[in-house]
């Protein structure tokens, strides 16, 4: 505060009136009024007052990027329980913590991921491989296997596994639906008591009936259907993928296969977007993931490239802005919707081929089930701090985030942000893949150079994916 004293003093030296004042800062306004109060802050945003503002901000951004990498400890826990590979994961509706997992030895385990314990275990739910698992509602679970049956389990009937000494008393299925062929997948309708199974045909079942209500096939299809999902929004729409490299859309109201596309390679998993009803994600054998808009099936809306082996599974985050994928290359990757490269990569020494992945309902955690029989819990955001975050800390985190966003184009900062340590085999495989693709590209370019101009034009990557579209 400047105390200005304007005194009109008639001076004997000067005839005119002077205006003189000298800077004075009143201490009282610049110190906290009581002990313990914060220091009052005075700002002056004139750039002259802030030399090296940009350089300092860059250093801060670099530090923020490095801190993010330092704090990136995504692995939380491994949930044991299965003896064989974990084939499917199904998150329980209306619950943030409960997830059911089914394995190749026909076992179902219900995990509570908050307490990291098994809530329930059904040791031999199916003979042989359990191939599909889904929830009918909060308490009933549907499973199918290669033993040609679909079973419904009511988990409200508790089974005490620990107390019974004379052999584990098994939970009996509340219903069994026998089929004629081994099942590859099951999906329950989002509201009606109807479910669909995938074998060599797609079958629609009523919960109260013992035999399928309806068989749906595409007219020329002969191969088996590997996986099936209901659309969460337009609930009569059904999507399936088959081993004959097809992706098919059905409508159970008409009872017909409406559309089908044949792709270059077969898909291993599919997942409907929870926020965009027309968007569907396919995990393909050709190392890529594809999102399709079902209104335009001629080409994918985005290709996601980073895996170095077949992608085995995928699942959307409940927010619809991210999704997780697990691959044969023993990595779990988390992708931003619409950003086709540089996903977050998770791996551990002991994790084998990832066969199933899932996001938790609060979008904060990711689950992966792998060949080694463990279900692993990961943070969806690797450097996120778990536990209570104070307001001051939250402000600092937000400031750091905005710095990282602002400076991501800087060479050094971008490099810190992008680079990930990955296991040597994955790294080598990526290198090899890159070399092969580069060689292919060069070869094509040379070939084009020596053909008549305009005769062979390069095809866009997206247009290579779909071979034919059938209705």
């Amino acid at each position, binding site marked *: *505060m*400047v*105390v*200005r*004293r304007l*005194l009109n*003093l008639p*001076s004997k*030296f*000067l*005839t*005119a*009136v*002077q*205006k*003189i*004042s*000298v*800077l*004075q*800062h009143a*201490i009282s306004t*610049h*110190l906290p009024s009581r002990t313990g109060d*914060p*220091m*009052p*802050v*005075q*700002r*002056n*945003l004139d750039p*002259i*007052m*802030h*030399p*090296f503002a*940009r*350089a*300092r*901000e*860059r*250093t*801060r951004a*670099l*530090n923020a990027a490095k801190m993010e990498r330092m704090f990136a400890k995504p692995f939380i826990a491994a949930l044991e329980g299965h003896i064989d590979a974990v084939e499917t994961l199904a998150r329980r509706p209306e619950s943030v913590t409960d997830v059911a997992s089914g394995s190749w030895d026909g076992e179902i385990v219900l995990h509570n991921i908050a307490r990291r314990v098994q809530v329930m275990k059904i040791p031999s739910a199916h003979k042989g491989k359990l191939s599909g698992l889904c929830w009918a509602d909060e308490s009933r679970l549907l499973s199918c296997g290669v033993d040609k049956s679909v079973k419904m389990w009511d988990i409200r009937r508790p089974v005490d596994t620990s107390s019974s000494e004379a052999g584990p008393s098994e939970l009996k299925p509340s219903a069994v639906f026998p089929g004629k062929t081994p099942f590859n997948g099951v999906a329950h309708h989002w509201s009606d008591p109807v479910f669909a199974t995938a074998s060599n045909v797609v079958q629609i079942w009523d919960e109260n009936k013992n035999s399928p209500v309806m068989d749906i096939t595409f007219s020329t299809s002969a191969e088996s259907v590997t996986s099936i999902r209901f659309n969460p929004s337009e609930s009569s729409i059904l999507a399936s993928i088959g081993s004959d490299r097809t992706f098919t859309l059905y409508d159970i109201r008409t009872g017909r296969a409406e559309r089908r596309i044949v792709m270059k390679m077969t898909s291993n998993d599919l997942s409907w977007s929870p926020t965009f009803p027309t968007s569907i994600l396919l995990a393909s054998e050709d190392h890529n993931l594809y999102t399709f808009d079902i209104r335009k099936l001629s080409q994918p809306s985005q290709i996601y490239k980073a895996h170095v082996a077949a992608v085995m599974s995928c699942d959307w985050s409940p927010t619809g802005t991210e999704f997780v994928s697990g691959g044969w290359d023993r990595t779990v990757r988390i992708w931003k919707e*619409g950003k086709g490269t540089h996903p977050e990569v998770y791996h551990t020494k002991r994790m084998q081929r990832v066969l199933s992945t899932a996001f938790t309902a609060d979008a904060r955690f990711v689950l992966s089930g792998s060949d080694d029989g463990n279900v692993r819990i990961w943070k969806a955001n690797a450097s996120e701090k778990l536990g209570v975050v*104070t*307001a*001051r800390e*939250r*402000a*600092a985190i*937000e*400031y750091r985030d905005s710095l990282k966003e602002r*400076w991501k184009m*800087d060479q050094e900062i971008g490099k810190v942000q992008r680079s990930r340590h990955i296991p040597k085999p994955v790294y080598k495989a990526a290198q090899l893949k890159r070399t092969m693709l580069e060689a292919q590209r060069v070869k094509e*370019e040379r070939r084009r*150079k020596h053909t008549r101009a305009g005769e062979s034009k*390069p095809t866009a990557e997206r247009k290579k994916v779909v071979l034919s579209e059938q209705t």
Partner: protein
Amino acid sequence: MENLVTKAKTSVPKSLRGYDPPPPGARRHSHITNSKLRIRLDKQAVQSARAQAMVKDAEMLASNEAGKFETEGQMERTWRISQDEIIKVIGAEAAKGRKEMVLEGGPYRVRYTRNGRHMAIVGQTGHVATFDWQTGTMHSEIQLRETCRDVTFLQDQSMYAVAQKKYVFMYDRDGVELHRLKSHLEPTRLEFLPFHWLLASVGLTGFLKYQDTSTGQIVAEHRTKLGACHTLAQNPHSAVLYLGHANGTVTLWTPNMSEPIVRLLTHLGPVNSVSIDSSSCGRYIATAGADGTVKVWDCRNWKGAVREWSSRGGAAQVEWSQRGLLAVASGGTINVHSRPSIYELFTTHVQPPLYLTHPIPHRPLVSLRFCPYQDILTVGHTLGLSSILVPGAGEPNFDSTEADPFEIRRTRREREVKGLLDKAILQIQPDMIVLDPDFIGSLAPQPKTDASSSSSVPFARLPRLARLQTSGKADETELDVDEDDSGSERDSEDAEQKTSLRREEEKKRMRGRNKSVKRYLRKQRKNVIDPKAIAIREKLRKDREARKQARDAANGSAPTAKYKPSVLDRFKRSA
């Protein structure tokens, strides 16, 4: 420095924010077809427009007014007003800034901390003292009993360095010796670069040495090859050091270059003092030489001094204040000149109009420092120190995230840690000390090779911009706008001038025949193969040839070189 912001403000979720209409100045990018990109650019534009509006608001909050020194009536002059009269007018509290300290062992040199609260003095015979001059508390007072030539605070008042007879020594707040920096031999002047944590010294050996005070490393040692050096100043905006030498040159140094980045012949005879105008981001510097002249230089072009005059009483000392007042101490007087007239180009060698003058009879006046955020000028001389009041010298609104005169112990510690973090391991690297500190974070220049020249590169391998340009889809409007937006006002002016010149050129160059067609061709993109343009070029070529032939025929010289005999000539009809 988000932690200095006392109230932690976290962002409110979008759903709770409420609608805030975009400010009217925000640019729209409706010409961009890609909706994702368009929306992102629009958002950015809105955000920057909002930020600008908020800066305007913040300016209103910076309410403190600078000191004032005006007379009413055209005939009165401010320099006629003496210190006694000023003191009479401003009142007792403000008058405390006017001090006379009579000390033995002079001449004395003086230095303030960056926040202006603390003061370090050193007498030539070894009397060193640091104190909080406002409260009058002494931190340390030591008698070193050897020649001391300079003193400087390090990051804050908790440490200081003294240039002693043979080495530089570091002391803590209480005057306990911390380090003897034995690589700095016979130092004469010290400077501390606060954002890089570098202590720089020059000495009788003619070496300029940078030492990192946080790690202890010697970052750079430059041999000036110009002998003993007694003048050192830093540009606070670029951390470039200015050395004045005995042969009359001023050299500019950065740690990463072993040669001076600028070498400027300023005076005939030794340079006595250099000072940099921080109010103009170091655009102007003032030098004073032993030849008795004071010169002001424009650092954008070094073509001669903007203004020069001779100081009475021999070699002068110069110093700029935060708000751009220039103090010149020579002989037994201190003259202060105010802003616009110092910069104005003036061919005759007359002193610019005086703002304030004050006689000090204790020659020589060796050190001159303005106190930051105060209207005080302190002069070190043979008999001690004198502080005089210079209304309007100091910046009235300090920024407490940068330098707070009222900081308490906790904030001082926090600032120290934050400063170290901002310096980080790679520092704001010493290599990043350059003349223009804003090059960080600016766009990289366009690569020189353009798309058309590198025809061997297939289309798919071209950079995105080149591909867009080739297919005629590049957004040229955006490029122009970016040029205008980037940089300071001056830059944008320059850019605008350049573009207008280019346009002018395009318009005016209409010599010769066939103007409109040529202009059309020039305007065509070179790399676009357009049948129309090709046809026109072909036609022009034919015209040119025909003209040339006609000219040759008129001259009588047949185009012999062009004629190639053919076997079919025998069938030609003889005309």
